[in-house]
């Protein structure tokens, strides 16, 4: 019988669709929390794609593609 996991401790992939709103509301939105989230995300991406022995092109190109998409979205109204 698995122990009941609190909603706020569950990972995003385990959250059911109906609980998404409450899960999102429960996240840590303090500046410290946001910085922590950015740091965690960065270290996850860095350790998976860049900090390896034989890194490939994908690690860098995904960041550039994301940047392209984001800047297109921001400048859409000008087009």
């Amino acid at each position, binding site marked *: 019988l698995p122990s009941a996991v609190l909603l706020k401790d569950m990972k995003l992939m385990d959250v059911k669709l109906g609980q998404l709103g409450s899960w999102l509301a429960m996240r840590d939105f303090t500046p410290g929390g946001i910085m922590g989230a950015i740091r965690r995300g960065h270290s996850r991406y860095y350790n998976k794609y860049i900090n390896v022995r034989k890194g490939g092109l994908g690690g860098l190109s*995904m960041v550039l593609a994301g940047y392209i998409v984001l800047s297109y979205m921001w400048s859409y109204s000008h087009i």
Partner: protein
Amino acid sequence: VLHTTRPLHTTQQSLAPVPPLPEKGGEVRHGLIPEEFFQFLYPKTGVTGPYMLGTGLLLYLLSKEIYVVNHETAAAACILTVIVYAIKKLGPEVAAFADKLNEEKVATAVAMKDEAIQTLQTAIEEEKKEQWRAEGRSYLFDAKRNNVAMLLETNYRERLLMVYSEVKKRLDYQVAMQTLKRQKEQDHMIQWVEKSVVQSITPQQQKESIAKCIVDLKALSKGAHAAV
């Protein structure tokens, strides 16, 4: 407030040895989309699912003019073609070059580590040798003890010799004193006897003795002439 009941250092966490770097990064397909996305859609849609999703998405963006086709699109198409061509042509060479740089860095680090280990090994050997040497203490102390005993013996014999020579000197002195005394007594007695004898010779006796000596000499010379 430190909770004294809180257990400390319960896990095996430590900074060394650091786990080695993973060999290859996460798989990325076409350089843009991570492999996890394809695996995520595989159970529901099979192999062509993500590609169909991509095509549909692209057509949707184009038809709804969410992506506007203008002069920048042509420029982007040309640039992307060139980039893809360059990557396909020169990719492996650049990768080999980067790998070589990495290898050199790793090689220097490993060399330093090996050198450190080697120096520590030699230090251990030296230490063991010093320990072995320290075991020879007993021989050293035996030799020193022998030295000291010899010194004592030498000293004792020297003093013995000195005692002997001193005693001999004193005894020699006594002997010399005695002989000297006897000699002096003898000399004095001889002198006294001579003096009394000479005094007792009166002048008349002297003349008689001289005459007798001359007669004796003449007789002797006659005898010698005869012998020759």
